[in-house]
């Protein structure tokens, strides 16, 4: 079957590149941690709010691989649970942004005219302010908190998908088979659903994969500034923001969550690169 051959080809291609394999491994580790995290952590109570002040700020040891934080919680436990939070948030933001941006983009690309103008101008408007700055402005207005941070980031991210979907839809519009379908009398929606969407999906998937990593980083950045999750939520960025006050003597507190952010973003980036090689080999490499 063509599908299984395609999959095998993809897997082989992926396997050939060290970078893509590394990406896959990193992503897999994060996903696994997110899934089984709550069952494997050594001190589950530390995420529910337990406070053990006598054991505060302990360096890494056999009992606490990543040391303890300022209220005595195990940093390893909180970092692993943080993986679950970050992954969910990252996926949520990416999917929401895509869900808004892609239909709008395809609409703009296929319909053209006035509608396209309006959509593209609106998109340009949101893209006129660099992402994090706009996110800060939005969160400052809405109030700090993980939900508001997510909303702000979706608002910052959706234009990217519009652009991508629109340009893909535009190029597909010219394809022969679209013309053929139209001539054959297929309704517009059907054309969109059956022809345009499946053929534009590849670059979108690549972008989404890389964006999950970037979204995780963005949420952590907002958390670091103090506009994201609140205590005692074990969000990586928020943890680092507090850990900052405990540098340099109690360095482990800041190092480990940051390393996990790095690993996640790196993993998704490498995976995205690898996927691009498979799904969209003709695209311009930047």
């Amino acid at each position, binding site marked *: 079957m063509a599908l299984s051959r395609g999959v095998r080809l993809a897997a082989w291609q992926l396997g050939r590149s060290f970078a893509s394999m590394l990406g896959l491994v990193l992503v897999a580790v994060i996903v696994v941690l997110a899934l089984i995290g709550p069952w494997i952590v050594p001190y589950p109570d530390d995420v529910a709010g337990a406070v053990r002040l006598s054991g505060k700020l302990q360096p890494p040891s056999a009992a606490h691989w990543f040391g303890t934080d300022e209220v005595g919680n195990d940093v390893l436990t909180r970092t692993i649970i943080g993986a679950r939070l970050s992954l969910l948030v990252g996926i949520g933001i990416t999917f929401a942004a895509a869900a808004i941006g892609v239909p709008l983009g395809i609409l703009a690309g296929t319909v053209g005219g006035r509608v396209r103008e309006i959509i593209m101008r609106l998109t340009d408007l949101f893209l006129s302010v660099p992402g994090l700055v706009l996110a800060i402005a939005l969160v400052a207005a809405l109030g700090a908190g993980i939900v508001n941070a997510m909303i702000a980031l979706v608002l910052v991210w959706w234009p990217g998908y519009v652009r991508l979907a629109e340009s893909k839809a535009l190029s597909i519009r010219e394809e022969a088979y679209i013309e053929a379908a139209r001539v054959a009398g297929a309704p517009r929606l059907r054309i969109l659903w059956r022809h345009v969407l499946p053929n534009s999906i590849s670059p979108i998937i690549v972008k989404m994969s890389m964006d999950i990593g970037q979204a995780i980083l963005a949420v952590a950045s907002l958390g670091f500034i103090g506009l994201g999750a*609140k205590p005692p939520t074990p969000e990586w960025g928020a943890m680092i923001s507090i850990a900052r006050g405990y540098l340099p003597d109690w360095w482990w507190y800041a190092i480990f969550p940051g390393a996990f952010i790095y690993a996640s973003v790196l993993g998704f980036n490498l995976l995205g690169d690898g996927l691009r090689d498979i799904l969209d080999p003709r695209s311009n490499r930047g």
Partner: protein
Amino acid sequence: MTTTRRAILHGAALSALAPSMSWAFDKDGDRKILVFSGNQAVPVLDPHVRYDWSTRMIQQSVYDGLLKYVGNPPRIIPWLAEKYEASPDGLTYTFHLVGNAKFHNGDPVDAEAVRYSFERALKLNAGVAWMLKDFLKPEKITAVDAKTVRFVLERPFQPFISYVPWWYIVNPKQVQANVVDGDYGKKWLTENEAGSGPFKLKRFDSTALIHMDAVPDYWKGWPMGDKNRLSGVIYRIVREAAPRRAGLQRREMDVVTNMSPDDMQQLAKLPGVRAEDHPGSTTFGIKFNCQTGPTADINLRKAIAYAFDYEALITIHNGGAKLMDSPFPPTMEGHIPVPGIPRKDVAKAKEFLAKTKTPSGGIELEYVHVQGLEDARRIGLVLLDSLRTLDIKLNIVGQPWPTMVARGSKPDTAANMTSVYVTPIGTDPDTVAFQYHRDSWGLYYGMSHYEDKEAWAMIAEARGLTDKARRMALYGEIQKRIVADQPEIFGMIPNRTWAMRDYVKGFEFSPVRFTGEVDLYPMWIDA
């Protein structure tokens, strides 16, 4: 390559030979500059508009008051006023000014300047105005002659003298010369000064750095002698603790404050660093909303108060704090340890909880603290852990101070629990007691919206009493009453800490100052 301050000074001095003028700062003979670092900016220097610890530290340096607070225990000493008298009925106060006080521009400090300053503060109705505005009308202040000022109060007010040191005297001529659109000089005084204090402003960048030069011929002289006095002081605002630590270690800074208890422990171990650690007078309380919400029920308040882990407060401060045993700090006149003030007792807590509408818990409460204050946040985590025994969930919210205050100003919007540090402004017990009076609703220390008509009557009465023994007895009753009503979780009184290099001399601690605030006037460097 650690760059010491002196290396930079040398570099700057050498390059002063280059043909450009303003950027090498003037050195006064061989005198030193003290570098003090904290985390709080000084947005508005105007002494009649605003005050907080960093602002007042600068205000106390560039301005003088009629009187001044010094020492531990704090006492009030004459300053611009060399003596004063109060009439027996407690209504008239007459101040006699010293003969030689001068403003920085040379104008003498006369009675008119005093009258003008008090009038300006009352008319602007901001900052310090609240202390006296109900008892003093600007028309009742008179400059009897060049060196005598008379105040006639509307009603007897015992705490009057204890508030006077915070009312700084500005030069009316300079202020009037810079009035814009009838703003009473507010805009100009935000970043400039018209004072007579031991220091004058050299450079003012409200969020980064404030550089003051010592006034060589300061009218009151210099306690360490003219040879030893400083050339000036730089207050450097650094938001994060790590660079302040590094600055102190590298001798780029001489005194730092706002360090966490854990940091202080590390700093004290360093060679060449001295830790100043003094029992403070700032109380930390978790104010309940006594009017609306579940916390309006005294049984719930008692339950929470008995569930709370008070020992954790001490552990967070590594031992550098004392638990409150009364709404009054122990340094306050009239303080008594109130018997039966709650300590952790889970059984008792559950007993009280059983009497509430939610006897088995299952509710969620909100705890609000000032964003950025690490200790208050940690205490929130302790509270969360403590409430788990009652099956009550806690939502910890960090908010900027003004938002918190705005929310807390109305009973309908105030959070279930808000944590506040309160420093009493003076030595008179009225400053603390009055926080529990109806008139304090809407202010940051009145966020509990405490209601007890009898207590209010007692507080109002105590303000006006002239018989000291009766007053103090009444304040004892007031304290017991407040504890019984449990408008807040009475927390701890954290120590005031500074870390400084051991060559810094002349540091004088006075509990009446805010946390972090120091009196820069007697300080100097012996190196």
